[in-house]
């Protein structure tokens, strides 16, 4: 490279930057464009965008206060004042669905972020130290946590820590980190044999730096695909735990709590169950389509098809 620049200087040319450095925003734009091109990816993207919009701007979008009680109109059907009707306290269901979006996104995003960071960290270390004691220890750790049926483990952790938003995030993250860990480990095993890693090792770079600079950025694509799919799962589990009364605390508008209340009044007002059920299903479809698009977009093999 030095030679080249020297030659170019002699020839009176501007030095050409040879390092390939893409900006994050560019990567994001290119990826999103590829996702949208996948069949269904566009719809997934639109719905996920809508959900994010609801989550961020709930206080501006929702027609009324989610906790405001209109006692005179309890169990009301859809009307112009309450588009989706009201629940057993006369609270506006549409507003509660919109605010429920916020809880769903916060919990799923928090859990997925936490578990992927811990999982990737452990997975990369384990993969880079393949065959050593540390590797076996980390695999052991992964296998222990993976042995539990996931939702039952989350249930037990919340039962011990007590139900709250933060504890739900921690519990869900704890059940999911081995899955990221195993993906990260498997990727690391192949990436660490690459020439550029060997070169960095030959140059005597520190192991930590190799892991951080050369390995981690190159194993992230499959991890991101897992993130997309896991968001959907976490949304379900948040509402599941809340449905059991082991999730977010009741006055908060969560889809699971809405279902829980609907279950109590299932004989008299079916709409109280129907709307949150529709919301959860739509969220699932949105994230499934989006993550499927992400998978195809990030998989070079699929892209050729």
């Amino acid at each position, binding site marked *: 490279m030095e030679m080249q620049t020297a030659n170019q200087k002699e020839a009176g040319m501007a030095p050409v930057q040879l390092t390939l450095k893409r900006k994050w925003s560019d990567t994001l734009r290119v990826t999103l464009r590829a996702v949208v091109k996948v069949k269904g990816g566009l719809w997934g993207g639109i719905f996920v965008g809508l959900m994010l919009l609801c989550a961020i701007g709930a206080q501006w979008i929702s027609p009324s206060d989610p906790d405001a009680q209109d006692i005179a109109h309890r169990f009301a059907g859809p009307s112009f004042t309450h588009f989706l009707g009201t629940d057993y306290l006369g609270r506006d269901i549409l507003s509660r669905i919109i605010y429920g979006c916020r809880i769903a996104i916060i919990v799923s995003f928090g859990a997925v972020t936490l578990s992927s960071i811990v999982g990737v960290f452990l997975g990369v270390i384990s993969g880079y130290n393949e065959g050593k004691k540390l590797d076996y220890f980390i695999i052991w750790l992964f296998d222990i946590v993976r042995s539990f049926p996931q939702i*039952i483990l989350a249930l*037990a952790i919340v039962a011990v820590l007590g139900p709250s938003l933060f504890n739900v995030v921690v519990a869900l993250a704890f059940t999911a980190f081995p899955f990221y860990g195993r993906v990260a480990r498997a990727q690391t095993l192949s990436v660490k044999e690459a020439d550029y890693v060997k070169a960095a090792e030959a140059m005597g770079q520190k192991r930590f730096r190799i892991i951080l600079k050369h390995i981690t950025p190159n194993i992230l694509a499959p991890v991101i695909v897992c993130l997309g799919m896991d968001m959907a799962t976490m949304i379900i589990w948040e509402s599941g735990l809340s449905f059991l009364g082991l999730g977010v605390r009741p006055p908060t508008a969560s889809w699971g709590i809405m279902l829980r209340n609907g279950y109590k009044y299932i004989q008299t007002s079916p709409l109280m169950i129907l709307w949150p059920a529709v919301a959860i299903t739509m969220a699932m479809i949105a994230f499934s389509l989006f993550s499927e698009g992400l998978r195809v977009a990030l998989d070079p093999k699929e892209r050729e098809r």
Partner: protein
Amino acid sequence: MLKYTIKRTLWMIPTLLGVLIILFSLTYLMPGDPASAMLGPRATPELVAELNQRLHLDKAMPVRLGYYLLGVVKGDLGTSVWSGHKVSSLIAQALPHTVLLAITSLGIAAFIGILLGAFSALRRDSPIGGAVTIISLLGVAVPDFVAALLLMLLFCIQIPILPALGAGAEGDLVDVAVHLILPATALGIGWVGYLSRLMRESMLDVLDSDYIRTARAFAVPRDIITYRYALKNAVIPCITVIGLGVGKLLGGAVFVEIIFSRPGLGKLIVDAVYARDFPMVQGGILVATILFVFANLLADISYAFVDPRIQYG
């Protein structure tokens, strides 16, 4: 092959040991004094002291862990704080209900899912393929507890033709079967979607492979190609997934059992969580985990047997 089986089986020992340690330390993480937390408002100093002694809570941690492991090895999972019965006998009563539910829903899911997937792969360019994609997407998108609630709403309240609660009278096969329909469907719906999609993908892969093309070139009858050559190989990926699915089924059973108030393992665990009955929670989760671990083991080993192309080091 044998070496792999032995290795895979032996690896379960340290894993299960770790599971026990986690279950044990969960009580340690519980804020406050476990005995008074379990007893709640009933706690008097004498009762707390008695419970502490009974559960060995007054001993040092390693000693307690030792007691716990020893008990588990002997098959003694402790005594339910709430009801006073043995945890193991309570689980033995509940388990058949859950196993029956899980097997039924898995059976439904495997049958419909594999059939749908294979069928849509055979007619890949017809609208049936698209229909299967939509069905599978919907199936995956409706979580089991939402499906359970919607099914209950539809078939117990709007069109009241099926019973909503309980597991049916013991011994009365028709009653038990009728009580099983909705819970098993709710639990299996997601798997129909998942399996049909997986089956479609793998069937398409197999149909495109060289040996099927060769068979076609030799004018082997289509039915023989489809059923004897293609279907057998295409089912293989579904087998491992079914193994993993047992964990999801056990998790889903928690919700379905609570909603349809079936006296199974999941309901036992959740009720124990509500009652802060920790020996019961520990025991229930342990049994669920052991079931899951063994299902996975079986799936892994059978996978290796079914597909001789896989080599294990």
